[in-house]
């Protein structure tokens, strides 16, 4: 626009004229979704937001909330930080997550464990099958080397700097950015320990359903995987939809699937007693 905005009221009218603009990457307030599971009432919706390619989002989710993440176009890369919302020194511990569950790979029924022996979130459904607990996320140096620039303010933002911003929005600092897990892009371990990245791109629309077992703060960065082999910066938007749900019951199959997992749920239930 090339209007003259010399007066505050002209400037205000110029700003107000933008209202109602719709873009793909934005939160919907109040949240609306026409594809909720049949058993979920629209009044239970908590959050509807599409995270931009190269962008990030943060959310506090209450215990029992379900979070559905959708890889809309097949090239999303959802790297995640998770904190106990009430005591964020407790956070996701990736080493405990793989060690306690005796397996390197995330999938349906797996738990995202904190460093205090508790479950932060459960993976209730997994329509992707490609996730990564090993490689972490990109940083300014890796993006500068690969794409020529890695700055937050530039065209090729990196995951670590997105994490720093997202954590800061909740009063957290550099020390709070911890090893992450990534959903929708995988890392497969070969004999001898070589890492094979599983980058796709994948069919559009894969989704993962997570369940919050504690009140959590989540930071999601949607930047290209650090081992993405493509020369050009490639990532597509990620959709997040969350709704309220009941606290996990004693007879829940994920809760009772393994002795280690059951003790993690006992620890959560003890924390909230």
């Amino acid at each position, binding site marked *: 626009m090339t209007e003259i905005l010399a007066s505050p009221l002209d400037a205000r009218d110029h700003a107000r004229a933008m209202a109602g603009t719709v873009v793909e990457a934005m939160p919907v307030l109040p949240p609306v979704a026409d594809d909720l599971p049949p058993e979920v009432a629209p009044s239970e919706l908590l959050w509807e937001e599409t995270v931009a390619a190269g962008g990030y989002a943060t959310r506090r989710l209450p215990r029992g909330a379900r979070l559905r993440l959708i890889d809309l176009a097949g090239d999303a890369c959802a790297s995640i930080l998770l904190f106990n919302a009430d005591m964020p020194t407790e956070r996701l511990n990736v080493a405990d997550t793989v060690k306690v569950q005796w397996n390197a790979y995330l999938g349906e029924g797996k738990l995202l464990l904190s460093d205090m022996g508790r479950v932060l979130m459960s993976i209730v459904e997994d329509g992707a099958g490609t996730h990564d607990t090993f490689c972490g996320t990109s940083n*300014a140096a890796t993006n500068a080397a690969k794409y020529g620039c890695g700055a937050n303010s530039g065209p090729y933002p990196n995951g670590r700097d997105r994490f720093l911003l997202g954590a800061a929005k909740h009063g957290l600092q550099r020390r709070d950015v911890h090893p992450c897990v990534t959903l929708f892009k995988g890392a497969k371990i070969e004999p001898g320990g070589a890492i094979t990245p599983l980058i796709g791109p994948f069919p559009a629309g894969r989704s993962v359903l997570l369940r919050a077992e504690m009140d959590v703060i989540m930071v999601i960065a949607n930047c290209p995987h650090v081992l993405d082999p493509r020369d050009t910066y490639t990532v597509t938007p990620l959709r997040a939809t969350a709704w309220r749900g009941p606290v996990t019951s004693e007879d829940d199959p994920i809760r009772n699937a393994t002795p280690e997992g059951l003790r993690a749920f006992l620890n959560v239930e003890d924390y909230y007693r």
Partner: protein
Amino acid sequence: MSIDPHLADLSGPVVHDVIVPARAPWLHHVAAGQTLRIVDLEGNQAVDFLLYAAADDAERYSAQDTVSAQGNLFLREGTVLRSNEGRPMMTIAATSVEYHDTIGGACSCESNTLRYGHHTKAEHACVENFLEANLREGRGKRDIVSNINFFMNVPVEADGSLGIVDGISAPGLTVDLKAEMDVIVVVSNCPQINNPCNGFNPTPVRMIVAE
């Protein structure tokens, strides 16, 4: 005159040489260019290991940056131990054990209740050691991140099965770490008795720093 075999082929004069008792923490500042040699005195003693940049301890060892940069989970001769900013902190200059672990994490009282049962809650654990050492320098829980386990063996099988199994180390084997920046080394000489990481017998290790 007998020559101490643990001092063989060091990079320069020894400036620090201590025994870390079984189950204990250890903290030491190592300057850029110095080499830290860890000696597994009695064999198959897991040495849990973290690094912080001396100039800014919010920069610390990153297992994820380390394994993704080298495209492999195992720490071998030549592996660069990288920080969360992607910068080299130390390099594995030599190792007489074929590989070391960086995905197995550190035992904690809390994770022990999951792995073995709540009867283990009062047993000593590596995170206790890490916290004790870090608290002396103003760091705390937020500074505990994925660590290295020297002399520990955590294979990953084709179906993703993963666990701490019998170690591949032996008495007197060593790892030499060359500091690429001024670092703060924080160690837990692992006290775990519920899995094979210490051969079910925590033992002392020797730390030698050479110029």
